[in-house]
């Protein structure tokens, strides 16, 4: 039972992070390797707003979320905008460089110490009993809820709102979408904003659960295979991928050696990729036309 809870919480964390990779990749085919850093900044932003709005934790969270969204928009407007239509590799390298810059800035602004936004917010992270001896941390439960809200919201948004439909269109065929009057820059900006928002949220939850420091970046990078298992362009795929990788990891810790828990997800991934090279839910590229 505890095993299931642990898997679900880990999967939720991965899914929340992976969602950002998928959002950006879908519309621009760019793999955002600064996503881990943007996620970490979410945690740090919460740390700052928590001390800024001491005593009003909800306001602090709201402001941190807004700042995250703004950060994503800013990244697009200032940087990524210049790389639409350029080689994807160059755009990916830009995100790497951005990541290095952000890591340096984070040390400059917040030092390399392990810090705890939860303390600043004045909240606790109690364990809640689920019966059957299983418990879940409040932050874990919140992560699960956040996944439900973010994924549910995104699916509805993409399906029913005009902006969501534009975003899907841009992802499927940017040229055609542009011809039909979809303003690509705005759609891309929105994608970056939403990706950073969800990543920032993941960073905040992570920071509440176990504090925030530079290693958050590597957690962000670990979620990248998750997005791949599901297929980089599918949100529901990211959910399933997260479950699969988390289950592999938790089972490896429980029944094999914890040492291999870093490696096992990759074996799952390799096996899966060899069976379905385009990811679990990714669209299979049409037959190559010559």
């Amino acid at each position, binding site marked *: 039972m505890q095993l299931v809870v642990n898997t679900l919480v*880990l999967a939720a964390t991965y899914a929340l992070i992976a969602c950002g990779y998928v959002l950006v990749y879908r519309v621009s085919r760019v793999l955002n390797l600064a996503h881990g850093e943007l996620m970490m900044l979410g945690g740090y932003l919460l740390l700052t707003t928590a001390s800024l709005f001491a005593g009003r934790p909800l306001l602090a969270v709201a402001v941190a979320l807004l700042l995250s969204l703004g950060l994503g928009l800013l990244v697009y407007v200032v940087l990524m905008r210049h790389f639409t239509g350029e080689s994807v590799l160059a755009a990916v390298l830009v995100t790497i460089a951005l990541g290095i810059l952000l890591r340096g800035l984070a040390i400059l602004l917040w*030092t390399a*110490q*392990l810090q705890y936004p939860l303390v600043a917010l004045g909240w606790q992270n109690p*364990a809640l009993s689920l019966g059957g001896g299983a418990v879940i941390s409040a932050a874990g439960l919140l992560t699960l809820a956040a996944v439900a809200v973010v994924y549910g919201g995104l699916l509805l948004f993409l399906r029913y709102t005009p902006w969501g439909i534009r975003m899907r269109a841009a992802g499927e065929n940017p040229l055609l979408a542009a011809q039909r009057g979809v303003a690509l820059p705005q759609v891309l900006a929105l994608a970056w904003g939403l990706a950073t928002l969800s990543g920032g949220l993941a960073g905040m939850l992570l920071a509440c659960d176990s504090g925030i420091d*530079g290693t958050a970046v590597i*957690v962000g990078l670990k979620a990248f295979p998750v997005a791949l298992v599901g297929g980089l362009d599918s949100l529901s795929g990211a959910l399933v991928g997260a479950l699969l990788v988390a289950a592999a*990891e938790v089972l490896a810790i*429980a029944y094999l050696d914890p*040492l291999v828990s870093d490696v096992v997800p990759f074996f799952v991934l390799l096996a899966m990729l060899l069976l379905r090279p385009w990811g679990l839910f990714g669209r299979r590229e049409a037959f190559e036309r010559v």
Partner: protein
Amino acid sequence: MQHRTWHRLGLTLAAVAVLFAVAQAQEPYRVGLSAALTGRGAETYAPVSEAIRLYVARLNARGGIHGHPVELLVEDNVAEPSRAAAHAKKFVSQDGVLLMLNASLSSTYPPMIHEAKRAGVPLFFAGSVCPREVYPPADPLLFCSTAFAARYDSEFALDFIKETAAGPVKLALVSMSIPISRGEVDYAEQLAPSRGIEPVSNQSIPPPTPNYAPFAAKIKAAGATWVYAWAPWVTQVKTFEALRQLGWQGKFLAYAHINAEEELARLQDEHFYVFGANAFFSHNLPVHQEILQAAAQGTMHPPTQLAEGWVAGMVLEAVLAGVSWPPTPAKVLAAMNRVRVDTRGLRGGPLEWTPTNHFRTTHYYRVYRWDRRQQGAVLAKDWTAVAIK
């Protein structure tokens, strides 16, 4: 280029030249420090480096040593061996340092040791884990003042657990999956039966892991009554918190890293013990006041984390005080082989190096825990001397 720009450039160059000339005239004792100030491990090593810098600044303000200032060259190796190697090369061949200091991850040791040996310049591990080579019989060039003492730490920890626990102990061990941490914890696992302690679980946790619950669940399932962790702080404390979340009621002994004092106050758990060699600031010794004053000059690190680097600074001063002008690396080495530093209460006793022992002749441990009634850290065990042979 504009005329004015040239003008300004000329002025800058002149200023640099003047500074250079002044520096030449004062003839400093020059030492080089390669530290992980950014990147992995920065949370541990940046405060150490900062404390050494603050100490040296105070030392120079007091007039330096034998009328000469101490010049501390600091380089950031980002915990990368290649950078550390390049810095070491620069220190010994270009800057002509008398002594090199290392405050970084263990991966930066081999390249620095390599350069130190080639140039015959002593290498002083300050704040980074002591390599085995400083224990007796010591390598002629390697020295260490850091509080950690591999092997001795685990021996002391197991003894402490044995005497604190009333009955039989089921012990879980926790390390981070980096060689240095795993090696120590594996040693503790082998050692435990000889202390009548039953090791029930040995978890080696990858450094970046988003969720410690799966590891904690395994420890809890193994029925551990005690946990001993010897790992970077993150791994120790996150495992502990995950265990408490799962409702585990046992006791936890962790190594007291530089941020242990703040962390005890945050956790407020009476059964979370930390052991180490540095005195907490709650004792408010005169030397602690000194550190607080130095920190007030401006630093981005909490002052309670500066003790480890401060000890290194004291050792550095004591060593250089034994070197007459003009200094050479050989003279420094000779001074290091017979140094005895009064740590003024920061450690349990003096720190002494001998020609065969570059660690310390006697090592002192203290164990702290949080006390709810006093709302502060209290001693679970006062200074315990361990002879290093």
